[in-house]
């Protein structure tokens, strides 16, 4: 069954700018899908529509068989608890400890009062610690997040998402601010979560080569439209140029795409 389904989704900003134009696709459970496309093509908008951080203008979005677009606040929060999100700039509460940030993944499942006061059970703390250990962050557990490196911060972001025990993880350019080595660590962890826990991953990427290496399926977006949707093997150089609206030798990429 499709875990996420977009049906003719459009998004117009300020009545004029058309960010998404008739987008339709669906994700099967356990898939690892990358979205590639130039800056401003609508990649981030697609991701933020899935859990309605942004409301769409037209169309329907289905998550786990339910219509997200028609939900009230309470139902929407229930969807969000099942959807992890990872950001380019990590979006952690920098002044709190690593542990507290990971535990934030449980906020949506807590009562207002317990969440507000930051009261967590021993099991939850143990779970958080085990997740941190799995991401090689056990030594950083009690450090404040502003003391960490970019790669470590992003792993805390991943830990927070896993803590939600999500069905779907949305990653908005998770490696765009990281060096190549940290990028590999982050992508390996994401890939690992996807395989081990069977969590569906939808990842926005700028790096075509990374998208081709890690995902079984790539969606190419340009100008708010999907122009490619298929396995990496089918992504030829002509399509890449179409996605990035570029000509030969206009791109920095070492992709070995089929001719």
């Amino acid at each position, binding site marked *: 069954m499709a875990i996420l389904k977009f049906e003719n989704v459009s998004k117009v900003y300020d009545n004029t700018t058309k960010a998404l134009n008739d987008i339709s696709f669906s994700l099967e459970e356990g898939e690892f899908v990358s979205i590639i496309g130039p800056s401003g093509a609508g990649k981030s908008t697609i991701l933020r529509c899935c859990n309605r951080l942004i409301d769409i203008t037209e169309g329907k979005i289905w998550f786990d068989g339910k219509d997200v677009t028609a939900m009230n606040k309470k139902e929407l929060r229930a969807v969000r608890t099942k959807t992890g999100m990872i950001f380019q700039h990590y*979006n952690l*509460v*920098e*002044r709190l400890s690593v542990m507290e940030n990971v535990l*934030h993944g449980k906020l*949506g499942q807590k009562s207002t009062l317990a*969440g507000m006061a930051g009261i967590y059970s021993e099991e939850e703390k143990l779970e958080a610690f085990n997740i941190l250990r799995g991401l090689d962050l056990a030594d950083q557990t009690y450090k404040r997040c502003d003391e960490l490196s970019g790669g470590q911060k992003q792993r805390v972001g991943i830990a*927070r998402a896993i803590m*939600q025990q999500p069905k779907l993880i949305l990653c908005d350019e998770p490696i765009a601010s990281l060096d190549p080595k940290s990028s590999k660590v982050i992508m390996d962890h994401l890939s690992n979560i996807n395989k081990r826990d069977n969590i569906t991953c939808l990842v926005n990427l700028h790096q075509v080569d990374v998208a081709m290496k890690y995902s079984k399926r790539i969606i190419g977006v340009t100008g708010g439209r999907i122009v490619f949707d298929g396995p990496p093997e089918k992504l030829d150089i002509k399509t890449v140029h179409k996605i990035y609206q570029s000509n030969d030798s206009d791109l920095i990429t070492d992709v070995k795409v089929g001719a």
Partner: protein
Amino acid sequence: MKKKENILAVRKVTYAVVAAVIALIYFGAAYITEFKMSEGIAAFPGAFLWIAENLMPDEQAISRIPKILSKLLETTLLSVAVTVFAAVCAFLFSLLGTRTTKINPIIGKAVRIVAAFFRNVPDVVWAMLLMFSFGQNILTGFLALFFTTFGLLTRAFIETIDEVSSSCVEALNATGANFIQCVFQGIIPSSLTGIVSWVLYMIETNIRSSTLIGMLTATGIGYLFDMYYKMLQFPSAGLIVLFMVILVIVIEGISNKIRRVIM
């Protein structure tokens, strides 16, 4: 290349024009108001001489130290109380005005306008207006300071929250956290240092302002200063000024220390 040179030439002309306009405004304004810089500067030595002769504390002034200190304490405590109370109200109010919490764009705009209104009426004017309703007492001074502090802090908090908390609130929203949880787990921890910094700054400012307001409302250290001044007892008035300066410096030192500790 040619275009670049043009831009540089245009920039030089712009600077020259701006400088000329500033000079013109200065001389024009000085001519209209009949202000003469040279006379102003020439009056300085005389003014300092007068201060040295008349404001030096004498025996009578020294004997009034306990009274001065008790009034100074009253004014300081009032300023702290007003600022803290206004800060709590301003924080709650600013939550309605930030883009981070996305309450409602119209409410957000309304909050900003209300805050601008309270902030842009000077506290002395507030005191004069409120005196009609509340008379010359400590409540008038309290409210006058409260209104301006509330307006200024609301604006400052909105900016602080939008600057430092918007990204983590987005993430907390994405985990399914509700509004109150986002405030307590996201906004407060991330913007607390900025908020405390603003509150400390307002305490300093309010100690200075409350002196002036006290002259109008006949309360606190401002009243004492006004009374000695009008009785032509300049040494006592001078001593109050001296204590005020010391107090503000001490408060500044304390708040700098607090800022360093909480960073």
